[in-house]
């Protein structure tokens, strides 16, 4: 982008001053090496200042950034004039904004890997559950007299089951809806309303989706059991319904986009051969768009697998493995992280719980990143050919 906009090299993105009468006194430009020199000077001066008033990395970075921002702009003002110093100033700010945005990302990844990594490689962390792990064992682990007990096996299984169930519910609904929107609808009021509602659904706060699923199932069990549900509505499938409410709009949106880019000529060629519309959709339209649809669905899964709040209010919390989606409370990875941090197994010795939480966070991040990567690869590898063979 920048290369098309400015006819200059990478080191010096400012446009050259070329046209106009050349004034010998102000025509000077900052030399090529001005930026690294200014940066180095700012770092050195900042290091000196921070050493004098007491070392801190944050203070050092902030002072260095401010010095570079102001110093470089002033230098530009002296050699190039007001307009160019303003340009330099804002250019530096844009770079600083980028580095500022990197700070939390690096900090999070670093924390997750450095704290969660050692926990993750503990034997049995991935397969054991929290049944029987009590404050006593955690206290022993802190003192060093016992190993770090417990694991995330139950949370992994819960996450897997609930996410798969949510996918099974939402993908057909989302796929069929978008097929209807693209292939069948003729732009009437119902089409407009559906599109509008999908938009509304995209904006539903996740906790509200959880409230809805929990409430619907509670109402159902109250009705089925004459007003006494006994908490039976808290189970995996309720959470799957809550996640579907969040997932369906994402699937509809991405699939709709993908179906719309399928060239009309393909459909017409199929019709010309006398093929039925539904077969055309199944044999021509969907296979053409399948890579986009698959990557959209994967991204939707990656989004809902990290949801915590709707699962907390629909599937509750559990300490042992539960394979049954239709009965009993269930744990998922995000809820596990939340519970371990907020309600440590041993309130007096929260360190083992924190370790387990970060171990689970590392697993969760790896899963989400993998899903994102898969989505990207699928979209690239199986993308329909745009050129002839």
């Amino acid at each position, binding site marked *: *982008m920048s290369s098309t*906009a400015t006819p200059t090299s990478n080191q010096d993105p400012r*446009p050259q001053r070329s046209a106009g009468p050349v004034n010998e006194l102000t025509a000077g430009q900052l030399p090529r090496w001005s930026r690294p020199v200014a940066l180095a000077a700012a770092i050195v001066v900042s290091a000196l200042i921070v050493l004098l008033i007491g070392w801190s990395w944050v203070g050092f970075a902030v002072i260095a950034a401010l010095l570079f921002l102001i110093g470089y702009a002033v230098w530009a003002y002296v050699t190039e004039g007001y307009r160019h110093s303003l340009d330099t100033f804002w250019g530096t700010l844009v770079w600083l904004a980028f580095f500022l945005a990197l700070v939390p990302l690096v*900090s999070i990844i670093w*924390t997750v890997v450095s704290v969660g990594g050692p926990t993750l490689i503990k034997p049995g962390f991935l397969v054991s559950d929290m049944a029987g792990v009590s404050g006593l064992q955690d206290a022993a682990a802190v003192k060093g007299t016992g190993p770090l007990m417990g694991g995330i096996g139950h949370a992994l299984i819960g996450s897997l089951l609930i996410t798969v169930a949510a996918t099974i519910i939402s993908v057909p*609904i989302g796929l069929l809806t978008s097929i209807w929107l693209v292939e069948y609808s003729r732009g009437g009021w119902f089409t407009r309303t559906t599109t509008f509602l999908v938009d509304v659904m995209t904006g539903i706060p996740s906790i509200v989706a959880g409230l809805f699923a929990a409430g619907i199932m509670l109402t159902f069990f109250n009705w089925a059991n004459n007003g006494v549900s006994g908490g039976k509505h808290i189970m995996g499938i309720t959470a799957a319904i809550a996640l579907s409410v969040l997932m369906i709009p994402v699937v509809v949106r991405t699939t709709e986009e993908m179906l719309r880019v399928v060239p009309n000529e393909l459909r017409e060629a199929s019709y010309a051969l006398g093929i039925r519309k539904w077969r055309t959709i199944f044999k021509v339209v969907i296979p053409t768009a399948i890579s986009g649809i698959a990557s959209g669905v994967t991204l939707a899964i990656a989004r809902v697998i990290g949801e915590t709040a709707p699962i907390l209010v629909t599937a509750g*919390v559990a300490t042992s493995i539960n394979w049954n989606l239709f009965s009993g409370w269930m744990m998922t990875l995000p809820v596990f992280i939340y519970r371990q*941090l907020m309600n440590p197994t041993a309130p007096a010795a929260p360190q083992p719980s924190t370790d387990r939480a970060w171990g689970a966070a590392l697993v969760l991040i790896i899963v989400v990143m993998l899903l994102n990567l898969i989505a990207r690869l699928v979209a690239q590898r199986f993308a329909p050919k745009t050129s002839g063979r």
Partner: protein
Amino acid sequence: MSETTVTPPDAPGDLARRGAAGRASDRIFNGLTLGAGILIFVVLALVTLYLILQSIPAMTAAPDQISTKTSFWTYVAPLVVGTLIASLIALLVSTPVAVGVALFISHYAPARISKGVGYVIDLLAAIPSVVFGAWGFTVFGPGLVPAYRWLNENLGFIPIFGTPSTTGRTLLTASLVLAVMILPIITSQCREIFIQTPALHQEAALALGATKWDMIRASVFPFARNGIVSAIMLGLGRALGETMAVTLVLSRGALTPNLIGVGNNTIPAEIALNFPEAFGMRQSELIAAGLVLFIITFLVNMIARWIVGRYSEFSGAN
């Protein structure tokens, strides 16, 4: 294309039977897809209806039935204010940085790395909110404690910098975590629009002797103004509904103007913390609070969509 009708070939016997079956299958499939659309319709109607029905008891209840012994509106008002304050601070912090990062990707980064930078920012969007919460709870919050102490010592005369928290788990920390979470949303929206700025506009500005910043002010920002506003609104919608980060980070309490001490609460955090144990009137209260949140986010999202809609008409003319 959808009007295209398929005429089955004229043939007796076998072919005709297959034609009839084909017509039926077409109709069935059409009905199936329509049914899915109607299902979405029904689900949303159910969500709204359910929230409203369950909220009515709390909204009309006498004050002594509500958990706080006040009317429902007195109960929910501080939560709404807390939610709005947290989201607005998040927006104030996030917007300039996000626009800066978007500009960096679209106009400042060397062409070779700008795509990679876009991926990195998308990475930030992929991190689950509970991990953001855990980070704010264990790393970011405690890290901010010295800053809060400094703010209180030097700017303590301003009410928002009251007695500092010793754990760093305050509304300001929660807002800053929210700011990090909505940054990738605003950035990716702005980036899309910045990239679409017509190259001719930019080159015309540069040809007139504009510096890069002059060019951005003269051609990129006017082109992208609506897009930036809608990106901000989408970020606001996300910040309002965000639950886990706030629940984990914030040490809850009554509404107070002090942003760096214990206190304040938001609707999502209130629901997430209390709903699992709630029943009867308390449950109704929380669902009513959820309804209030739903309405607020709905309005924000609608405004955003409306701006996007206006914007797309505008850009179509280009």
